[in-house]
């Protein structure tokens, strides 16, 4: 299943946070959302998993507006991994992952054998199969994210929406989590802070800047020095990754981009600038 976002506008506390957003998450692809802090990535994702209601525009699931589905029904198609930590309530991993079965369950219904099987398998898929009885709050950050991903897996959806799932994880755990996502081969919409991670795992990227989608395309098309200068305000060279061949963004961590270097911010002329 694919997700199309059309003319999306989201207002939050009276302020427009996302405006005129168009984007596509194609079937079976990993679609990345990148952009500086406050560019509207989380807000946009929240409308997809229905935490926020758009002020205008639509989120389409295979062509039909998700707002026309009941919340439970759309949760059978779209699973979310928000940035929340959750409270300290003595939940075991099994209980956390079993929450993924919520959209399939009527009031008072317990878990049947099939549900339990799905929960066990989801935990095993993220490598936590032997820890089902541990307490969620006692896990490390990387383990927690894996368990929350297992919960999303247990929801058995065609679409996964993840809001900066690699935040606060060390490199090894970032790689581990992104590998799990790639292995899943679902329609995936993920916001990522790390542009190099985005460049290597995403099939397609959308760049958000001040609430607008300012560029869309493959990582190679999108992640170019002029755009990085304009949107992120940083100097960077884009080279080929010596191991993977993916675009590798080498940032200049010593100083910000001097705006004078890229005076023209309109579309085509930017492409003529050197790649450093």
């Amino acid at each position, binding site marked *: 299943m694919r997700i199309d976002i059309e003319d999306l506008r989201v207002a939050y*506390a009276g302020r427009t946070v996302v405006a005129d957003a168009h984007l596509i998450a194609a079937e079976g692809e990993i679609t990345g959302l990148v952009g500086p802090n406050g560019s509207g990535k989380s807000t946009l994702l*929240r409308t997809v*998993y*229905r*935490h926020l209601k758009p002020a205008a525009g639509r989120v389409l699931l295979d062509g039909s507006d998700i707002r026309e589905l*009941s*919340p*439970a*029904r*759309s*949760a*059978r198609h*779209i*699973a*979310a*991994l*928000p*940035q*929340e*930590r*959750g*409270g*300290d*309530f*003595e*939940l*075991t991993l099994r*209980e*956390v992952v*079993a*929450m*993924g079965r*919520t*959209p399939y*369950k009527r*009031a*008072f219904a*317990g878990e049947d054998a099939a549900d339990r099987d799905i929960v066990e398998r989801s935990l095993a898929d993220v490598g936590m199969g032997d*820890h089902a*009885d*541990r*307490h969620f*709050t*006692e896990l490390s950050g990387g383990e927690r994210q894996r368990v929350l991903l297992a919960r999303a897996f247990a*929801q058995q959806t065609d679409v996964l*929406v993840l809001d900066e799932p690699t935040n606060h994880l060390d490199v090894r755990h970032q790689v581990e989590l992104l590998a799990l996502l790639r292995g899943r081969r679902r329609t995936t919409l993920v916001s990522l802070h790390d542009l190099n991670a985005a460049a290597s795992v995403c099939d397609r990227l959308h760049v958000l800047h001040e609430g607008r989608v300012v560029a869309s395309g493959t990582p190679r098309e999108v992640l170019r020095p002029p755009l990085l200068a304009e949107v992120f305000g940083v100097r960077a060279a884009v080279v080929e990754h010596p191991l993977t061949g993916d675009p590798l963004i080498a940032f200049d961590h010593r100083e910000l981009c001097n705006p004078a270097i890229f005076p023209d911010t309109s579309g085509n002329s930017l492409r003529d600038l050197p790649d450093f």
Partner: protein
Amino acid sequence: MALDTTVSRKGTDARVRTRRSMPAGPLALLLAVALLAALTAAVAWGSTSIPPGEVWSVVWRRLSGDAPRPGTNDLIVWQLRLPRALLAALVGAGLGLVGTAMQALVRNPLADPYFLGVSNGASLGAVAAIVLGLGSGGALGLGLSGAAFAGALATFALVWAVARRGGGFAPLRLVLAGVAIGQFLSGFTSYLVLQAGDEQQTHSVLFWLMGSLSGASWPLLAAPAVAVPAVLLLLQARARGLNALLMGDETAAGLGIDVVRLRRELFAVTSLLTGVLVAVSGAIAFVALMVPHVCRLVVGGDHRRLLPVSALFGALLLVVVDIVCRTAMDTQELPVGVVTSLIGAPALLYLLDRRLGSGS
């Protein structure tokens, strides 16, 4: 050095602590049997002791419709002690449910109607109704419950709004807002009661602020007897939603929960039940806070198990506490809130220590 070892030992424990959650069915059965035993003891024990067999035969006679055997035993069992024991059970069960639901609603394991000021709001509502004469006459129960409900709902909304101001939602802020507003309201309640002047009313400051089960009677049982099972049923139907709320609103939304509607329901239901409970027993501290915690340690955080177990354990706890209140001193009985505070405060300190100690 000693401190270091303690910390590291705690850390290790935390890492290996796993739980095979105790099966809820047998546990519920166990609690139900214990509750029945406690109820029997509550009726049997007192200034005049009545053998348990006699207790049951009086109850059986009444329930089966036979003419009651006239005498003091029938009076003590049926008119005095049984309504009181049942009231303790209903109020305890209700507090267990309110605490569980509120803690999920505000995603804060330190929440309870007493600390969030909601009980005090309910007390103020009830007292205002009495002073204004709204609660008099035949509709006493309903008028009081209604006023207490209104007070609870308004207070909960206010505490919520204050705690959320500025967008953030720190757990500590919520509890502090609740305590501050609750204290203000209880001051106002005391003023109203004292203002009203007569001996009876002055005495009841203690009732509204500390809680008491001494006013128990059969008619008084009606409201909680309807409200407590109804709320249990409703919460049980929402158990998965409550579970999802523990992880966060966004997570719940992503799981297909209509979070706004669920929160509204929980707001209404917890305020309603708090109102009903306070109208019959005043503001009893700590029970709603402690019961869910203890039950979580045994059956875990899943509300499908936690709710019924909390209701049963709350009932058992308050019946036992009331036995202590009635029998601890020869000359007079203790208000139930005195005993719950004596048990609850150290337990709360232990909990705080455990939480802060484990760094979460």
